[in-house]
Structures are given as C-alpha cells and as structure tokens.
C-alpha cells in the first residue's frame, strides 16, 4: 500500500457497513447529506421533466441506488480511474504564484492531467458503467466548450456505443478542435440552431432526443444539474476529486486545507472537490462563477451571485431569468461556464451558508490564465482560470502558513484560439 493510499484509508469518513473499500475506493456512501428520496436538497433539486421522461428518470434512480450499494461497481469505477484516466491526479504547490501574492500557499488539484484533459471524464466513466448495465446501445450528451462531449465520445468509443453530442451552433464554431476530436472518436456532433445556440439549447435538444429515443438511449448529463438522480450521481462520481485532495492534504501538509476554491458553471468540478470536505467545518469553501463583463452590467453567467430560484432543465435551483421567468442569455469568455442554471446542491449550500459563491470577470480570468502559464508553465482552461483568479485574491488576505486547494479542472489547450483572438493574434 502506497503512502497516499494509506493516508486515504486513514482519512476516509465513516463508511456504511458491508462496504469495505480498499485505498481510494469510491463508495457513494460517505455523503454530507441529501438528496432525499425525491432528489431534493432543501427546496432545490427534484424532478421537473415532461411525462415521457419520468419513467426513464425513475428507472435510472432505481438502477443507481442498487448499483451504488455494490462494492464491485465502485471497484470497476476505481479501476478505470486508475488505469484509464490516470488517477490520482497530483496536488501541486504553485510556489512562484503563491509567493507573488505573499499570502497563503496556492495548491492546485491537477484535474487537467486526466485523460481527455479535464475532470469531465470522471463522470462519463461512471455513467458509461450505468449505460452498459442498463443495456442501452446509444449515448447522447450535451456540451458547451466540448469537454464533456469529448469525454462522452471517449467512453462511447471504448464501449462501442453510438454517440450523439448536441452542441450549440455558436459553440461548434468557437470550439472547432473539440468538435474534430469527437468526430475522430466516432461521435456525431449535432449543431443546435434553436434559441441562443449555446449550451442551454443543446440541453433542450438532448432532452428532446431522449424523449424520442427513450427506449434505447442513455443520456449522459455533463454536470450536477438536470432531474434527480443526475445531480446526485454526477456528484458521487466527481467526489473522487475531493476524496483524493483531502487525503493528499493530510499526507503532504499534515492537515486539511484552510480553503477550497473551484469554478462553478453547472458546478460538477466544484461539488466534486467540495463534497468530501462538507463536514470539515473549518475548511472554507468558495465557488467562483463567471462574472463576464461584471455582475453590474447584467452580462454574466452567475446565477448564484445574481439570479433567483426557479426551475430549469429538470430541477429547481438558482437561474438567470427576467421578471417574467424567461431564461436570459448568459455571457462568459468561457464556454464551459456559459450556462444560466447551476446544480441544485450548490443552491442549497449557498442558502445554508456552508459554501460562499463569488464571481470574477472575464478580464480577471484572462489575467489568471496568462499568469499561471507564465509563472508555473501550466496553461489552465478558462473555466479553471476563474477559480484561480479568485484564489489569488483570497491568498493575499491569508497567512503564509495557510493553504488553499484550487481545482484546476481542465487544461487550456482548447482555449488557445479564444485567447489569441482576444490578443489580436492569429494562431
């Protein structure tokens, strides 16, 4: 048993009887709380979909509740995490960056080093196991920046499943490299031209496809949103991030971090990091939303910071809508954060005060993107750069003996064209 594995075992919270995982085993059992049996986190979550999809959602809930109690399911998941994804991902102390701000140590959880370059693969590996168990030959997914689409195409290729990825027509243009990656792996990328032609419209179209092909299709939702049980099961798969980070902190720093920081679009990388720390009340938690041009301009993608409770895409949560309840268009330099809703568990964590939700602007995120590239030799995804930008501000207010774990949720290769264009450079 490696030192890390020993530390994880020692650090693991109480685990249900009968589930005796070894080392970094995933269980889905060690959760802070909720959701309840109807998928509610307080007043949030639930199931709000058309009747045609109700049976499929209920079946998925039943299957997941059964499988998630079986150690063999989590063993298969962990096997893929280690041998296919390349986990555990390192915890890296960004020393030069930290010293620049003269405060707390900034430590990066390197999800960018995962196979396919982001945390998204943790979820698609898990959901692919569900699809396989349920005998569904066809996968659908929605994608914004293309990272979840790529991660879905990846697992579909590996299992020999048909894969259809819905992507807003504007995002297809913005993220052409990821479109090509999906196609290389045999997926069909379907541009969505309805509505605002971005992520929310891709989600609408995926829901329509699912209602039409519900008998043979598994819908891999890419974030902790959608109808129950998605927010629960996506969280359980992504919680491997936080379990590792918790154990690595204890091993490498001898204690838990003082703060956690992660970007929040739908919120899957954030809940994945936060969840295993929710009971550790001394660990401060910060979710960073996309402030776009600034919250005060209205041109942003920050429902927790500036939205209100509503219902979108199958769950009750904070949404960005106008006074008449129409969903408004969002703005962010980062396609992966450009979404008007957010996972219901984040809505609940905000209301109960366990997590703080803040925002940074496009400009601040771009500055952090450039700074990490130049000072640490790591090009972060623009999404992750939002978390990083806030962490730098936070670190400056803290002591050098403290440390912050930032989820570096993805690598920035996909964003090179976006940033070059802003800089007026043609790549």
């Amino acid at each position, binding site marked *: 048993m490696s030192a890390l594995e020993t530390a994880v075992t020692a650090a693991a919270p109480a685990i249900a009887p009968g589930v005796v995982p070894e080392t970094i085993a995933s269980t889905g059992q060690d959760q802070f709380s909720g959701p309840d049996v109807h998928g509610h986190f307080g007043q949030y979550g639930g199931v709000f979909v058309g009747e045609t999809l109700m049976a499929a959602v209920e079946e998925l809930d039943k299957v997941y509740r059964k499988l998630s109690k079986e150690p063999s399911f989590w063993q298969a998941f962990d096997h893929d995490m280690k041998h296919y994804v390349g986990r555990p991902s390192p915890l890296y102390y960004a020393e030069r960056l930290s010293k620049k701000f003269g405060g707390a140590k900034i430590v990066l959880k390197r999800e960018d080093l995962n196979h396919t370059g982001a945390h998204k693969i943790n979820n698609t590996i898990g959901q692919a196991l569900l699809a396989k168990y349920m005998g569904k030959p066809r996968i659908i997914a929605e994608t914004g920046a293309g990272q979840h689409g790529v991660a879905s195409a990846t697992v579909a290729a590996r299992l020999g499943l048909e894969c259809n990825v819905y992507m807003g027509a504007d995002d297809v243009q913005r993220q052409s490299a990821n479109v090509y990656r999906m196609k290389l792996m045999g997926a069909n990328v379907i541009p969505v031209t309805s509505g605002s032609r971005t992520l929310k419209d891709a989600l609408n179209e995926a829901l329509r496809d699912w209602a039409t092909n519900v008998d043979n299709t598994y819908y891999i939702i890419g974030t902790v949103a959608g109808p129950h049980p998605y927010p629960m099961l996506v969280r359980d798969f992504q919680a491997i991030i936080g379990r590792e980070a918790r154990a690595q902190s204890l091993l490498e720093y001898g204690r838990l971090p003082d703060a956690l920081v992660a970007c929040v679009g739908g919120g899957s990388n954030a809940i994945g990091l936060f969840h295993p720390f929710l009971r550790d009340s001394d660990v401060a938690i910060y979710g960073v939303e996309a402030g776009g041009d600034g919250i005060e301009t209205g041109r942003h993608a920050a429902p927790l910071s500036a939205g209100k409770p*509503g219902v979108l895409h199958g769950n009750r949560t904070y949404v960005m809508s106008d006074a008449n309840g*129409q969903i408004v268009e969002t703005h962010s330099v980062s396609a992966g954060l450009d979404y008007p809703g957010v996972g219901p568990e984040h809505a609940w964590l905000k209301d109960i005060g366990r997590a703080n939700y803040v925002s940074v602007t496009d400009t601040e995120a771009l500055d952090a993107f450039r700074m990490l590239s130049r000072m640490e030799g790591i090009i972060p995804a623009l999404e992750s750069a939002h978390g990083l930008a806030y962490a730098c501000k936070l670190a400056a207010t803290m002591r050098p003996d403290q440390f912050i774990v930032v989820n570096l949720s993805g690598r920035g290769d996909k964003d090179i064209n976006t940033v070059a264009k802003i800089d007026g450079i043609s790549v």
Partner: protein
Amino acid sequence: MSRLTACINAVKAANRKVLIPYLVAGDPDGDTTVALMHQLVSDGADVLELGMPFSDPSSDGAIIQLGAERALRQGTSLHTVFVIVSAFRKTDSHTPIVLMGYLNPLEAIGYASFVTQAADAGADGILIVDLPVSEAQSLLALTRPRDLDMIFLVAPTTTESRLSAICENSSGYIYYVSLKGVTGAAIIDTGEIRDRVSALRHRTQLPIVVGFGIKDTHSANAMAAISDGVIVGSALVQKIGELTENGKRDAAAIAESTALIKDIRQSLNA
C-alpha cells in the same frame, strides 16, 4: 362543476368528439391571438389550449418553439396572457380555456399570484408540462379552491404506479401523449395508442383526449375514433406562423390560418 367539465360533458352527451386547438399566446401579437381564439370557436373548437410562451420549451418540437420565440419577441409575458384571456371573455363566456406552459414563469411571479390572476381572468384549466404530479401538490392546493382544473399528461412510457397518481390528481381531462417524442412528431402506431387509451379507461372516468402528432383530418379521425377527442397544436401553430411571415392580420388571413381546424371539425362530425 367546472366550466371545462360541463363543456366536455355536453359535447359527449351530443355524441360528438372534443376538438381542442393549441395556439401560443402573443403569436403573432396579443390582439391577433384574441381574434384567432374567436375564429377557432366559430370553426368548431370546444376548448382552447393557450400556450404561455417560454424561452426553453424542451418538451416541444421546433414549430412550437418558433411560435414561442415570435410571441416573446413581442414582449409576451404572463400578464399579457391574462390580458388576452380577459379580452376573449368579454364576448365569450362559455368556451373553456386551458393555460399550457412551463413552470419557471410561474415560479417567477409566484404560484398564488398566478392562480389568482388566471382564475380572475377567466381561465379554466392549467397544464404545466414540466411539473409532474409528484411536484405539483403546492400548486394543486391553490387551484382546487378556485375551481381551476389541473391537467396532466399520460405518456406511452407512464408506469402503472404513476398512472394512479395522475388519475387521482387530474381533473377536466387526461391528455394522452400519442408518441414518444416532442410535439409535432409523426404518429407511428395507432394500434398501440388504442390499447393504451382503453387500458386508461379502466383507471379513470375522466375524458381522455389525444395530442402530439395530430396534423390533419386523417390523423384526427384516427385518434378521435379511439378517444374522446383530439388536440391539434403544431399544425395550427405552423399556419399561424405564416401571419408573421406575410405580415397579414386581417380577418381573411386569420380565418385562413385556422382553416385546418374547421376541416377537422367537419371531418370529426361526419
């Protein structure tokens, strides 16, 4: 007895089939919607389903989404919907109106305010497509005292246990969804629908009307033969869309856009 139930009972007593057109409030504009509603009644509609436009109608197909987008571009809100219903009621106090839409606009103004304004305006029923029975109790508690009927969908995928809950909580009618998919898709298997509708008969005394995929006299006759009536949405919204395309709002253009409903009425009565 609600106006909706009384109306459908009368239609059934006369040995006729219920014909329910669906149109989007505010498409192409509020005044024209009122004119279209009156025209539909004179064409033979028994009940009107009035769509409350929503930006993200994920249970609808492209045709109804485009109709909602046209209405939203005109600034249509729930307030506009209530104004339309009130205006219609000035000269028609007998045709039931069912408001159909998605939940988020109701969340924005509050359920209590919605129910009060809908009932005061003269609406008779409410159908919220993304509000399953299991999440509907707080809205039901408000609609029941105002005699507003809550209509729920039954789909080909609906399980036995869900059927019981839907039948217990529904009033007015049961909306049977003919197909797996979204509004405006094509009906494939009439036989399966017949079996499902007759099974549903054993579960409820409520009238059962069939919607999704009814686009002409042929499909309307086929579905009416195995149920109490039909809902016609996308095919009508497509025609109403032409009013925007050709910029016409006069009586002749309005009558032409609803001609399909007149044809279906005649065909159902034949």
